[in-house]
């Protein structure tokens, strides 16, 4: 190695190495740069949508069911109304269907069970990286939406939940939203049974969304109300969900 080589190495190393790390952190902290990084999201969403269309998520066999299905997010909502309903075994529970619909609905669990249902063994992929496999039975969301009759302006379905990850007074409630293509997909259900048992509280009783082609945070638990909207910009911080408001992608296909 010559002296020139060594000099170039030291200079090159300083130019390339240390500043790269600080530059990356500086970029990470800048809202404008974050906007550039976020610019890839519509590309990702459109590419995935174009490929996935109506395809079904893979389904699994009974023997693949996880004995240790993890419960994430809220596992025991403190909301007073929720506690009352839970104490009564959710007999008094009514799912409200409102917003841009022809016929607002108020459905009991018995009424929901009498509609078109589906049972599926699917995997649940958490954004953190883990996977659990479970068996879900529930009412097809499309059946509920058909009964309510969507108005033509409706573009998204918003799920209002009983739980708040911050359980102190004023803690923001969980909410989620999905597009109509996922809302009417065959495997999109409002589940009230898990692994052949009534849906446990820690997994979202009395009703949780299963939207199988997206990550776990889209699968809203403890659903209180469904609302059809033209835009979700007026809800929460306007990004379409609790975690979306905190920087996660609205379309959680990857």
């Amino acid at each position, binding site marked *: 190695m010559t002296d*020139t080589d060594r000099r170039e190495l030291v200079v090159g190393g300083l130019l390339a190495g240390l500043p790269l790390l600080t530059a990356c952190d500086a970029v990470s902290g800048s809202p404008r740069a974050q906007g550039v*990084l976020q610019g890839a999201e519509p590309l990702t969403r459109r590419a995935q949508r174009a*490929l996935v269309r109506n395809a079904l998520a893979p389904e699994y066999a009974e023997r693949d069911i996880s004995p240790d299905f*993890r419960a994430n997010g809220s596992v025991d909502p403190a909301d007073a109304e929720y506690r009352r309903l839970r104490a009564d075994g959710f007999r008094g529970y009514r799912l409200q269907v409102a917003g841009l619909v022809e016929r607002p609905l108020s459905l009991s669990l018995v009424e929901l069970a009498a509609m078109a249902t589906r049972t599926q063994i699917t995997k649940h*992929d958490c954004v953190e*990286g883990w*996977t659990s*496999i479970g068996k879900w039975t529930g009412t097809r969301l499309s059946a509920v939406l058909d009964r309510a009759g969507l108005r033509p302006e409706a573009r998204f379905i918003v799920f209002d939940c009983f739980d708040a990850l911050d359980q102190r007074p004023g803690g923001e409630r969980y909410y989620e939203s999905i597009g109509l293509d996922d809302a009417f997909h065959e495997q999109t259900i409002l589940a009230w049974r898990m692994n052949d048992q009534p849906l446990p509280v820690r997994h979202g009783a009395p009703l949780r969304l299963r939207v199988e082609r997206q990550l776990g945070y889209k699968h809203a638990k403890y659903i209180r109300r469904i609302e059809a909207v033209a835009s979700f910009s007026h809800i929460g911080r306007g990004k379409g969900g609790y975690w979306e408001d905190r920087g996660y992608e609205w379309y959680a*296909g*990857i």
Partner: protein
Amino acid sequence: MSPVADRTLGPGRTATYRHPWLVRVTHWVNALCIAVLVMSGLQILKAHPHLYWGLASTFADPWVSFPDIPGWATLPSWRDLALGRRWHFFFAWLFVLNGALYLVWVVLSGRVRRVLEPTREDFAGLGRSLGEHARLRFPEGEAARRYNVIQKLSYLTVLLGLLPLMLATGLAMSPAMNAALPGLLELLGGRQSARTLHFLSAAGLVLFTVVHVLLVLLSGPANHLRAMITGWYVIREPTREDES
């Protein structure tokens, strides 16, 4: 072979045009992408630093757990899964487009056969080449014009093996892509196997990069860096003094 003629620099020193501009540009874009993808990938791994084989996670029994992933290795340096994912997917697109451009070009231009495909003589000399690498002796003179057999094999393994495997295992972790391409998920042995393979391929890439940079440092870093920036690589004829 090269359409650009050699330049004689002085006694025993010849400059040869080694890397066409497309190779140079895609090499550096790829290097940047790999650095960002590895570091943002470590941020994502940090959210659940355990790996499993098979369809699902067996939480009590991961095959490996990482107790601590230091901030200097992650992007951003603080814990932020959402931001790590943004970096990862932005640079994943750049990586894929850049890699596709390179692969299409090397195949269509015939460069993959001319420059990267090992010849029969290359394979016959595999043992000798291994011995030379072990003694850190690198080809000079006319032999330095071409990639040696170990270079050819490792570049081909990375370009046609590890890098495409990174993409395939990455896509196989996407629930949307699992619906669109269920065969890919099955081929890789399930979602948690895909995540493990994604990690192992990335580890293979890091290992390749370490050895690659080390060999560049040991075999004339200024010459190699110049070649990958300007295209021109200087060949020195072995002289008596060098041998003494």
